[in-house]
């Protein structure tokens, strides 16, 4: 980092902040977005409409949004952490009540120009709230079971609300992001093991509460061949497409699985499948490497930041990004059930991109404010 350390007493100016932004990281993110553009162009059979062009516009607008967030005073973020969390919980409750039925699940609030999906925003709100909570916590306190009760509830409440929608994939991601935050916050390892054992014991109960289509997905995952033309179709076709890509791929715009529509949802959840088919092992690996590079850069920001809040924030949003990618790729390669998690910046769809880009804004904010210290118990809050 070439820029000089700023005086901790006076906040940096906007110009200084812009100069401090890790532009190489932004460039990596934009590169991934461009991969998405190229894939969506191919998914439409070689056309900018209906997906690629809009994807590009969103990418530009949301990058601007991320930079804007990076310029916000980190103390303001700290202050707003709990109210934001509270607001999103209210929105989750609101979709439960007024949400439109969409694909059998209530997930959206229709604002007219955009469909607001609070469960996505919750991923960031949860990271913010937990980062604030653990900011003040020394390890001795974290060892106290009672101290861990609030963060547990902060995680379980949205997980329960999202499960009820029902959205297995998002609920799982919320749980995992929350767990990562607890881990980074310093919760004792043995407690994780105990919680894991407890969760294992609760599995049969959870099974009983799953919707039929969710059970069907699990059953199909365990044995996709049992239903080759029904529910197993997606995953079988996806594996065929990926496998047929071979080392170098079948060529851009040449993937027969994707181009002849054997592959369902190729512009959304199965975008990576199409990449692997058309660009082969080499291309798929390159994109995985790109995603890993972004992840590691995010981790580096967390390592470097001064305040506990900033580094928890950076680590949390980075985990969220990495989880998207890992779950999506594991899903399309048949390692886990199809849970409907898109590949960030590549899959078509505004909400996931919004979450990731807002997350990028928070990450850049932590990076810009790496030297800003925040008192454990700020007097003005």
């Amino acid at each position, binding site marked *: 980092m070439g820029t000089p350390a700023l005086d901790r007493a006076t906040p940096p100016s906007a110009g200084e902040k812009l100069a401090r932004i890790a532009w190489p990281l932004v460039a990596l993110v934009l590169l991934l977005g461009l991969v998405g553009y190229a894939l969506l162009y191919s998914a439409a059979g070689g056309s900018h409409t209906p997906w690629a062009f809009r994807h590009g516009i969103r990418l530009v607008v949301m990058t601007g949004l991320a930079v804007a967030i990076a310029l916000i005073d980190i103390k303001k973020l700290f202050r707003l952490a709990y109210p934001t969390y509270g607001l999103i919980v209210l929105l989750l409750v609101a979709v439960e009540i007024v949400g439109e039925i969409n694909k059998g699940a209530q997930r959206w609030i229709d604002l007219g120009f955009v469909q607001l999906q609070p469960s996505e925003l919750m991923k960031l709100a949860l990271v913010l709230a937990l980062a604030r909570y653990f900011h003040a916590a*020394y390890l001795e306190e974290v060892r106290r079971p009672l101290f861990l009760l609030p963060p547990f509830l902060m995680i379980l409440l949205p997980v329960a609300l999202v499960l009820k929608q029902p959205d297995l994939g998002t609920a799982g991601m919320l749980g995992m992001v929350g767990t990562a935050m607890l*881990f980074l916050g310093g919760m004792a390892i043995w407690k994780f093991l105990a919680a894991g054992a407890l969760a294992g014991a609760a599995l049969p109960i959870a099974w009983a509460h799953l919707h039929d289509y969710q059970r069907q997905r699990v059953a199909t995952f365990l044995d996709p061949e049992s239903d080759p*033309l029904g529910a197993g179709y997606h995953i079988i076709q996806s594996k065929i497409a990926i496998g047929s890509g*071979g080392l170098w791929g079948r060529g851009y715009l040449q993937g027969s699985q994707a181009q*002849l529509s*054997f592959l369902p949802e190729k512009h959304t959840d199965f975008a990576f499948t199409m990449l*692997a088919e058309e660009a*082969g092992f080499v291309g*798929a690996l390159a994109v995985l490497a790109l995603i890993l590079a972004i992840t590691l850069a995010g*981790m580096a920001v967390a390592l470097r930041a001064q305040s506990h809040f900033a580094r928890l924030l950076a680590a949390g949003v980075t985990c969220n990004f990495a989880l998207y990618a890992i779950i999506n790729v594991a899903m399309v390669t048949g390692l886990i059930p199809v849970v409907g998690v898109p590949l960030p910046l590549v899959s078509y769809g505004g909400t996931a991109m919004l979450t990731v880009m807002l997350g990028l804004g928070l990450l850049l904010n932590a990076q810009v404010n790496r030297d800003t210290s925040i008192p454990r118990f700020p007097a003005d809050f």
Partner: protein
Amino acid sequence: MYQEADRNRCFRRRLLLLGGLQVALFGGLAARLWQLQLRDGVTYQLLADENRISQRLTVPPRGVIVDRRGRPLAINAPTYRVRVVREQAGDLRGVLEALAEIVPLDARRIEEVLQLAKLHRPFVPITVREDLSWDEVARIAVRSPDLPGILLDSGLLRQYPHGAVTAHVVGYVGPVAKAERESDPDPLLKLPDFRVGKTGIERAYDRELRGRAGFSRVEVNVIGREIREIDRNDGEEGADLQLSIDLDLQTYCMERLADQEAAAAVVLEVATGAVLALASVPTYDPGAFAGGLSAALWRQLADDPRHPLVNKCIRGQYPPGSTFKMVTALAALEAGLVTPASEVFCPGFMSLGNARFHCWKPHGHGRISLVQALAQSCDVYFYELARRVGIDALAAMARRFGFGETLGIDLPGEKPGLMPDSRWKRERLGQPWQKGETLVCGIGQGFVSATPLQLAVMTARLCNGGRAVHPWIVRGPHAHVSEGKGVPPVSLGVSPANLEFVLKGMYEVVNGPRGTAKASALPIPGVLMAGKTGTSQVRRISKAERATGAHKRKDRPREERDHALFVGYAPHDRPRYAVAVVIEHGESGAKAAAPVARDIMVEALRLEPGTTPPAPRRLDLAERR
């Protein structure tokens, strides 16, 4: 400060651990890609290249439906059809238009096929036309090089050899509706020209008739030749169904009713509940539905005021009129409120408060008791019985004989009729029950309504020793009704002696000197039918009409004329068959319905379709007299 440093150390350590975990996970994903793309890449490449033929559904033949003697009622006839595969056709519209120059194919069908093709995956063949003549097949085959994507093959087409005669029982099949496709995960329903049962037995037993899809996965080489079969699953053929219906009797009933505007007849085997004939006129041709119905024909069928599409035996609800009087009689006998010897005086009407309830016979029957009251159908006698019994006990007895609720016959859409009681009126109409309504219900009028099937079941339950038979059509292991599997019906718990008195009344109706249906006695020596006529009002008769006799005029509009009903069973000494006939607006049960029932009964006795030997009756008052 050491706390801060402690926390920092812990955070760094854990962040690195988490980072390491993520690197490991990405490594795992890379390994998975290696596995799929490099190690097994060749296999998947082959599967991808030949994807469209690597998996194929085999459609099981639909089960055949036969009558009780094994005569086919629904079969699968081989047919030649021409199909098109979108993916191979390229310019689908162009290919279809080229095809239209060779064989008749209207523009609307071309649009339909284009729509259908969009709904299915590109390699799924879509049927363009079925039932091609051999000449048409040859013409297409000769031109096939110019018609990419066009396939000729033979398929099976559902046919109903007896068409309109069995339409209401057997039903018909039709294309899968969107709602059906969404609610039923069976992959067969996703096939473009699959047909499912829409009504009748075809609908009620669709799952059984449909069978289970098989699939085969075939490995193929570059030019599409099959090299070997990877695996296959034969699925299950649709189950064949044997019905209780006797085709000859069914045909006779339909012919006998053919000159009526709208009518229904049901014949049951009294011991088992087997439905031997279920006739509803007017009827329709189910064959018209198999090949797709034109909108005009559909409108014509649906708008016909005589409702040809409705099976009146199970969906027509009529006031049962005097055919209900056996129930009123039994309710009173079982409650001990009358004996067969108790007499009631009929002056031609009964007064209740200010209202006057008329007997059909203007000057009355004089002193009359149970058997003659049934034989001559004296309304006042049954008003009096109903008054003594009360509506709730009357309704309870009616329900035991099958009124007011569906009987569970294995056909879709059965109606329950209506047997009102005081609670029903309070809950549905919010009004207290009136005594006068009890009287009217006692002669099967007012709120009471029943289907012809319910009337036949009542008759069967009366004459089979008081056992609660349920009607059924499919016999054997697939039967939905337990009687169809051979489970014997249970007793209703009605006193056999009281039943005998009622049957004695029904005997007198047909065979007694003053019986209302004495003109319709069986012409077979030594074989007697018993029964009951009913003439049920469609609308209330006003005082003025009664005074002028306008309610009996022949020139009333058809829809105001009374319904004609008759229920009966035979032979009287060893009952085997029960029959119920309803002739809509037939005006007189004795004149219109009873002769039809008699002829049907004669035919039933001649054909002897029943298979279960009848149980001898324990008591026979007719013989002991």
